[in-house]
């Protein structure tokens, strides 16, 4: 129980420059996850290893268990059986807040930003910082100016040029800019893992490119990134490894170098099976 075996991993199809990423222990692991909803089997014994400094894409048809898997890893669902390990230690997240406190941030498909609040308020929502001294401790006064400055730094660090004014209400932003705010929040507080659920689903070409650049930026800063997407070109562009979910189980893990998009989709739909 205390030590877990790594999943077998072939580095043959991983570019030489990236191989060192896979020397370290996985930061987040799942073993034999099973979850059922009544008679429906959501996850049917899924294993997963995630490494620091990689983008692991999770693809699969509707109902294949992508979201369910991610929700088990981030505390939104609790698996019936199976274990989740963070840096080798077993963890059990009862609610999303627990995962967040462990350094796992999720960018939900619906983004979870508050339209009426400004960018800085959204970045620090439920993590507000107070003024120093009695103004903060006694009167619980918010450090609005400080949060605004630090929010600006977080957005800047991701290289987002289009957002300048942190006092701007989120509802006045474009879809891509909202996505950027959500990603910036995850990046600012996610110390270990950032999970992105369909981050490019509602975006145009240019904005998708911006978001994918952010995803790579997160990886290059040493975070482990899980990217859930329906968009195969985006997956093949941004991912280091690709976990394919099919019918509640894992149909295999491939890399953009080992398989092309067509082969990936064939595995995803069950047209071909991955030799194991």
């Amino acid at each position, binding site marked *: 129980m205390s030590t877990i075996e790594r999943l077998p991993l072939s580095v043959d199809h991983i570019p030489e420059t990236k191989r060192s990423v896979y020397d370290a222990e996985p930061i987040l692991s799942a073993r034999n996850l099973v979850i059922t909803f009544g008679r429906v089997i959501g996850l049917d014994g899924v294993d997963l290893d995630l490494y620091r400094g990689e983008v692991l894409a999770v693809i699969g048809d509707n109902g294949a268990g992508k979201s369910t898997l991610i929700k088990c890893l981030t505390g939104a669902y609790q698996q019936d059986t199976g274990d989740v390990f963070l840096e080798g230690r077993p963890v059990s997240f009862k609610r*999303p*807040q627990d995962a*967040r406190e462990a350094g796992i941030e999720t960018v*939900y498909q*619906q*983004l*979870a*930003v*508050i*339209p*009426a*609040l400004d960018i800085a*308020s*959204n970045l620090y*929502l*439920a*993590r*507000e910082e*107070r003024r120093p001294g009695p103004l903060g401790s006694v*009167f*619980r*006064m*918010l450090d*609005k100016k400080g949060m605004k400055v630090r929010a600006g730094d977080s957005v800047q660090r991701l290289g987002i040029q289009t957002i300048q004014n942190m006092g*701007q*209400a989120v*509802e*006045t*932003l*474009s879809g891509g800019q909202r996505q950027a705010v959500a990603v910036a929040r995850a990046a600012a507080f996610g110390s270990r893992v950032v999970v992105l659920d369909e981050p490019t689903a509602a975006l145009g070409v240019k904005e998708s490119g911006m978001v994918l650049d952010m995803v790579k930026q997160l990886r290059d800063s040493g975070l482990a990134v899980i990217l859930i997407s329906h968009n195969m070109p985006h997956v093949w562009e941004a991912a280091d490894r690709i976990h394919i979910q099919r019918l509640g189980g894992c149909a295999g893990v491939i890399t953009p170098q080992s398989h092309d998009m067509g082969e990936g989709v064939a595995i995803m739909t069950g047209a071909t099976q991955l030799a194991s």
Partner: protein
Amino acid sequence: MSSSTSAAAAEFARRRQSPVQRIQHLLHGYPWLSPLFLLVLTFVVFSILNPRFASPNAQSLLFQQVAVVACLAIGQTLVILTAGIDLSVGAITILAMMVMATLAAENGVAGWLAILIGIALAVGAGALNGLLVTRVGLPPFIVTLGTLSIFTAIALLYSGGSSIQNNRLPDIINFTGETFSVGPFRVTVGVIMVLLLYAIVGFALTQTAWGRHIFAVGDDPESARLSGVASKRILLSVYTVAGLIYGFAAWIQIGRAGSATANGIPDANLDSITAVVIGGTSLFGGRGGLIGSLLGALIVGSFTLGLSLAGVDQQWRLLAIGVLVIVAVSVDQWIRKVKA
């Protein structure tokens, strides 16, 4: 090709905003601007109709007349900001008022203790609303519609439907009706208390995490929850704080009316909602502010006082307020469509 389209897009982004769009943006950023404009306008119009309206006497009276509704509007604003509504405002206030007065006049309870018990009861009543909304998961409209009847019935049963005059009440309960002069104005303790409550709750709403979370829960409850806001705790606290404020309103109402009567504030529910809506707070939650509600209460009060000073039938007030409410909500809908 891409460069030409991006140039066109940049051109589009740089386009001059029409004056109407600018107004929309301004109102979006400062929701209290329209009620402020309206209040100034009513002041000017009624002062022209009858110059006495602008006199310190009339303005002092205006503040005394709106004090209770303005106080209730604080609690109502908090609830409406969470996308709820409180129909039990008046019922809670009456219950607290009758308990305060009856305990002091009939049961010989010390005045300060009677006030404390009355306020505590109002807090409990607000918390009951909050628990029904958060734990049982009922819509606020239904919860407060139910407790409106329940609290009214309890107040009537408890007081036997009789009223208690202020000569039977200890000084401390009548204290909110005490008047003193501030320059040319006559001010009651109750008016000062209401203004203080506005300052305190306004601070909490704009300067603390609690206030920010109220806006978040009202604007998008699911996103707020996913962001880690303790939505249920926020909602419960809002209804409880609203109850506390209604408790103070009960004390202020006794001082203002000179008696405690179970049918003393028949229009409290609608008046408080009207003040909040005219004040620019959205019934859909998450937008607005406290200052607007004070302005809204003053606008409604100005119509009452101004029309009577102008010698016009009071029914015109009802008509005007009705039009204002519809205009205010229309403006809110329009502001929501603001674009960058």
